[in-house]
């Protein structure tokens, strides 16, 4: 017990030494009340792929050169209500069927008669997939061009705003796919799924793509239990703050001597340093109960180069792939513990980018072996990248089953996070009881957005599906619900309301 007193003294000392502590006052009551009524948390996980393959109906596939007609592979290819049978993409959720609800048959409107940007209906999609789909899907706001940009705040950031000042980190925005992988081009907006108030380019939130940096950012603020360690920690934190203060003191001198454009650039940079300084000056989180710093994930898996092939040879494992599997799991671990410790209440994890060119083969080869995945009864490895798989890039493996298998891999990370949350006790229940965890894929499967006429297409904002897990706000999961062509943002609003959002709109969409 004596040890604890000393440790508290250090905490007091740190708080006293800090220069500015706008977070401190609001954090103290939040910390204290956390034990009684746990806060609601919200996360969204994103997969940069569609729900099927071009020109293949929901029950048709080609595997290993054989055409197959077989149901159960399209994610929502089953009855509604409770107790529906889980499809290939949902198999990782087998033990968690009562913990999530699937809302299917969601659709984003578009103007069938015009491809003009000004003719896009409210909450609608500009008629150019991929870019046109992102804004309505994630922000409920219409897109007016092919650019990858959300024109309104995204659901995770709306929850972050709701909890602003309550936690050390306003939100946790992370991305598992670190590189674009196609020589000669680059992400160009495909790497953003979180946008702050107002949306638009300037509101986009850069995801942290390094698991190691994300780990350090979240968990180096923990005061160790051991007295000596705590003293060392205190020294280190004072040193960090002094270094940042030293940099911050240059602000006026630098920004006052440059033109307006440079001033804006540099002020943004200094603002971010100031925010970091504020974060680490705030009272450090104290590990207690279920809250403890996770093990250091170590150096990040190396970033894979471009795809390796040769002539018409296949894309081989080890290139175009940066072990997104491990990266996703580490990020899920971090989101889990950040929620448990109430370091943040809003998170987004972009597992793969929009129009992802991640090499699909390591995933396809590993399905059933990679932790948490289940190999479908008919399965053969798929050549090409994630994007090409949906577009039938592999002549022998096309259609529903290959797409479903890769979607399942994405969902395995969702299942992993949910499982961790529900196995973490909190206030008589578990953390999932106080969370809403959303999963969405980039596209649906149906009428093509571009030409407005082709059926069974990946470039579709019809037949979209959202998964909502958790019981925050009294949400009762466990069903498959027919969305009856409701806008996917309605599912987001439902999840946001469960997580404490008092409004009933997201962008142009109202519930």
């Amino acid at each position: 017990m004596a040890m604890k007193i000393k440790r508290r003294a250090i905490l007091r000392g740190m708080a006293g030494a800090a220069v500015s502590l706008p977070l401190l006052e609001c954090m103290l009551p939040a910390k204290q009340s956390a034990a009684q009524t746990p806060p609601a948390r919200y996360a969204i996980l994103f997969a940069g792929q569609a729900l099927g393959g071009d020109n293949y109906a929901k029950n048709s596939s080609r595997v290993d050169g054989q055409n197959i007609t077989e149901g159960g592979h399209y994610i929502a290819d089953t009855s509604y209500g409770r107790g529906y049978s889980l499809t290939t993409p949902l198999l990782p959720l087998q033990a968690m069927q009562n913990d999530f609800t699937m809302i299917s048959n969601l659709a984003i409107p578009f103007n069938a008669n015009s491809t003009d940007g000004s003719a896009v209906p409210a909450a609608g999609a500009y008629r150019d997939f991929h870019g046109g789909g992102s804004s309505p899907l994630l922000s409920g706001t219409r897109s007016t061009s092919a650019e990858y940009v959300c024109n309104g705040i995204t659901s995770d950031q709306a929850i972050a705003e709701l909890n602003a000042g309550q936690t050390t980190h306003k939100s946790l925005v992370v991305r598992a796919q670190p590189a674009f992988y196609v020589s000669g081009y680059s992400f160009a907006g495909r790497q953003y799924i979180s946008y702050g108030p107002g949306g638009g380019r300037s509101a986009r939130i850069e995801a942290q793509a390094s698991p190691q940096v994300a780990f350090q950012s979240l968990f180096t603020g923990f005061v160790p239990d051991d007295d000596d360690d705590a003293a060392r920690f205190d020294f280190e934190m004072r040193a960090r703050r002094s270094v940042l203060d030293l940099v911050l003191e240059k602000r006026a001198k630098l920004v006052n001597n440059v033109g307006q454009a440079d001033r804006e650039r540099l002020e943004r940079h200094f603002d971010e340093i100031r925010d970091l300084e504020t974060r680490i000056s705030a009272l450090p989180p104290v590990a207690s109960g279920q809250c403890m710093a996770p093990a250091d994930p170590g150096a990040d898996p190396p970033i894979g180069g471009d795809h390796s092939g040769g002539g018409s040879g296949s894309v081989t494992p080890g290139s175009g792939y940066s072990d997104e599997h491990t990266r996703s799991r580490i990020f899920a671990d971090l989101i889990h513990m950040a929620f448990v410790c109430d370091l943040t209440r809003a998170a987004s994890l972009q597992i793969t980018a929009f129009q992802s060119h991640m090499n699909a083969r390591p995933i396809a080869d590993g399905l059933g072996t990679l932790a948490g995945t289940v190999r479908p009864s008919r399965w053969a490895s798929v050549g090409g990248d994630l994007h090409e798989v949906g577009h039938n890039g592999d002549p022998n493996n096309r259609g529903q089953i290959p797409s479903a298998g890769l979607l399942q891999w994405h969902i395995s990370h969702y299942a992993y996070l949910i499982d961790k949350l529900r196995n973490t006790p909190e206030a008589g229940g578990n953390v999932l009881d106080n969370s809403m965890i959303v999963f969405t894929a980039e596209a649906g499967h149906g009428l093509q957005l571009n030409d407005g006429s082709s059926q069974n297409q990946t470039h579709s904002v019809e037949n979209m599906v959202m998964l909502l897990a958790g019981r925050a706000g009294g949400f009762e999961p466990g069903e498959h619900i027919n969305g009856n062509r409701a806008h996917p943002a309605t599912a987001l609003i439902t999840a946001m309301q469960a997580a404490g959002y008092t409004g009933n709109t997201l962008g142009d969409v109202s519930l």
Partner: protein
Amino acid sequence: MFFRTVGMIALSVLVACTGQIGQSDDSRGPGGGGPPAVDPLLAMESGARRLTQAELDNTLRDLLGEDTAPAARLLNEDEFRPFDNDYTIQQASDALITSLEVLAKEVAERALNDPTRRAELVPCTPASDGDEQCFRDFLDAFLPRALRRPVTPEDIDAYLPLLAFASEDNAVVDNDFYTAVELAVSAAIQDPELLYRIEEGTPGSEPGLLELDGYEIANRISYLLWATMPDDALFAAAGSGALDTPDGRRAEALRMLDDPKARGQLHRFHAMWLGYRSIPHTPELVAAFNRETSALIDRVVLDEPGSYTRLFTMEETFVDDALADHYGLPRPDGGEGWVSYEGTGRAGILGHGTLLAAFSKFEDTSPTQRGILVRTRLMCEDVPRPPPDVDADQPPQGAMDALCKYDRYAEHRDQSSSCAGCHSLVDPIGFGLENFDIAGRYREHDDGLPECIIEGFGEIVGIGEFSGPGELSELLVENDYVDACAVQQFMTFALGRETTDYEAALLQELTESFRAGNHDFKAFIVDFIASDRFARRAEERL
């Protein structure tokens, strides 16, 4: 963007099968798109540029001996447009700042833990943990290099509070003099003056025109030619005022172009420009391809100065035995060297595996993508985006299951379809290269399909017909495309942003001088650095 005008724009088009072209233009552009305040012939608009991942890694290598490429590991990937240095889309973020703090701490710790590097960093032996004089000596030596300018007493004094961490009597912390040094190094790495190239300048002959000081000029030259910080000689030239004169800049540029770092930068520039910075092959093959292409660049730019158009017309290539075997070329004497292209249909860089692998779809060539490469990167034309109602991610639908690739592209050629208008601009170029697979090997039929004979005839519509890389290169060179386009690409790279329509006269003037100098690229670069406009900047308009 300054582009030659492509005819027949107003057609419904389908130009991409991977949907990667026509990327969203999320660039604000300098000056917000309005006319610049200063005639670009006098001075070009510029803004504070954050070092790219590559530039930061190089800078930390030269400043601290750091060799683990921490920026490539810990910072988010730069956007390649096609160059990695477009400052108009750089935006500081929480992710960036957080990563930089981790990076700085890691790099500083490694530098201080290495006795050799530590000794290089600290020129004195501290008499005590709190030895202020020794700390000042360290800062006097280190800070001007870190900030890449002379420092003031105030700059130094700002670091002194860190000494408290060296002298603090702390029973559990193993702190000493070098603790403060480590913190100082970490702070410098996070200093915007290290991370950005901030040019203040002094007011010049007209409003909005700023004259750069010697150190600002030194940084410009260094990051352009070396992608890293200035060396001692360049700093000395900045301090002596030599860089304020065209002759002084010329002398430094010539000296620096003799350094291996300049070669590396020329290789990087070409790899980003021509899209082969990472290509879909085994590391061994990629390395061999890069040696081949780098040898050609070195030769036509630096080792045998003369016409740069030889980059495209060179009738021999640099290979080792393995690469010669790969291409089916005769083996060179001595295991590595130049061998003739005679009778192969190849010439210059377009015959290399690097270029033939670039813009491929992952497992085969894409005639459309190769056509786009030629139009956009070698002719500097703007290939229009497909109209929104076309799904450009899918192969041509009309005959998608046809056995042979040429037949699958029938819809693109069908004049009654909406596709032909724009695809006729690009596909025929790609089909003229179809005899060369994505590993740069000659082939007579589609891979694995003897029944699909490749004719290999191509056309740049409106310019002329060709077959193979050699004849294509000849068309591009003789019709004055590649020289003008190379100038534009170089300027995009040098400015760290796309050139604007307002800079058309500037590009025209530069192209004419490039031609007047018989396409000597080295002389062109040196002249550019020597020019008055290189030592100036125009304030961005908002």
